């Protein structure tokens, strides 16, 4: 996949790389589309479970967002091929993949939405704010993955945190949180 992209890959390529028989492939998956969706789902749930693990127990919302984004970026840096599968190739594979991709972003919508409770103007924020913020964050990550620069993703943490927090906290307060966090690779995680 990471060599040819979704369209260029055939079932023959997959069974060759996996070292299995064509029959075995069809015992497990109905089609290339099914197989892709399974790979996408497994990669995305691995990434999201890291987010939950890192962010779930932090009460302070701005730091919770920071820890969640940091964990997600670390996943991309460590697993660039899988990250590409679930964040780049997923968008050009099949409608089922696009749908799953859209649904998986909802986890972030809920996390970001909690910011309305701590924002002085939380009541007045546009209904679609979280969707737009996440769309923006994922667009930046998509660009870096497309440019084959996964290692540069870690550096993006401060600006992405700032971008995500600013509408809730104001630019200055968002910046303070963003600057204290460092990059994804160096950010403290609950395991340290």
């Amino acid at each position, binding site marked *: 996949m990471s060599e040819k992209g979704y369209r260029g890959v055939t079932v023959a390529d997959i069974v060759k790389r996996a070292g299995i028989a064509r029959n075995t492939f069809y015992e497990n998956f109905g089609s290339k589309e099914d197989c892709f969706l399974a790979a996408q789902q497994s990669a995305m749930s691995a990434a999201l479970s890291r987010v939950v693990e890192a962010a779930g127990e932090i009460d302070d919302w701005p730091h919770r967002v920071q820890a969640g984004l940091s964990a997600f970026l670390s996943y991309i840096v460590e697993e660039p091929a899988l990250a590409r599968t679930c964040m780049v190739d997923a968008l050009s594979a099949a409608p089922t993949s*696009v749908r799953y991709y859209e649904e998986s972003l909802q986890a972030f919508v809920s996390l970001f939405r909690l910011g309305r409770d701590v924002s002085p103007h939380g009541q007045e924020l546009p209904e679609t*704010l979280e969707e737009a913020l996440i769309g*923006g964050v994922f667009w930046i990550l998509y660009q870096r993955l497309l440019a084959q620069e996964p290692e540069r993703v870690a550096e993006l943490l401060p600006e992405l945190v700032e971008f995500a927090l600013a*509408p809730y906290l104001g*630019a200055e307060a968002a910046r303070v949180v963003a600057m204290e966090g460092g990059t994804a690779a160096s950010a403290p995680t609950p395991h340290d």
Partner: protein
Amino acid sequence: MSDPVNPSVDSAEYPPELARLPPGRHGLPREFVARNQRERLIAGLAEAVAENGYAGTTIAHITRHAAVSRRTFYEHFSSKDECFVAAYDTVMAELRQRVDEAFNQEEEWAQAVQAGIAAMLDFLIAEPHLARLSMVEALVAGPVVIERYDAAIQGLVPYFQAGRKGRSAKVLAGLSPSTEEALVGGMVSLISRRIFADRTEELESLLPDLVEFALTPYLGSAEAAKVARSR
């Protein structure tokens, strides 16, 4: 005289209810006919894709909608992908022109952004087939189109970067190098998700949210909300 562009040998392929230029009798220069056929093929592709999705569209679908022969298709395009690229470019050029005109008509940057976004939404609402083609099907239409799709989105960045001009040091400190990219990506994702889900009718009510989202980093949320609700 036999017509080199509309060879009569293919006549049997045409469904009788579809009108086409009568071969040899229209008196139009050949280049015009050729261009007209290209336009019809592009329009035919848009209709076929709206009906069947990109993956399900065949060259036969396209030529049937365009009311031209298969041979004519291959005189203009070597493949379905190539025809899609031409259609995509046509749609994006039109969209870009409308956004540009609307943006340039306003004196103030904030109002220009609002006018530009409104022009984009108006076009997508008025042309749901082209909206789907350019925002949803483009992503599954092969690497060439994806590259152009990405470039088209990145091409919106300068409209927002113009908003940095004349801002205070405090405002500029709150903007990072990727702010505009993130804004554009966020806005496109709001729009394309609705088109993907066949909820194009929701685009109209999206205008104030998009405007507020786009202006907040430059004007602050109170002022951005004021502009967003002014229209």
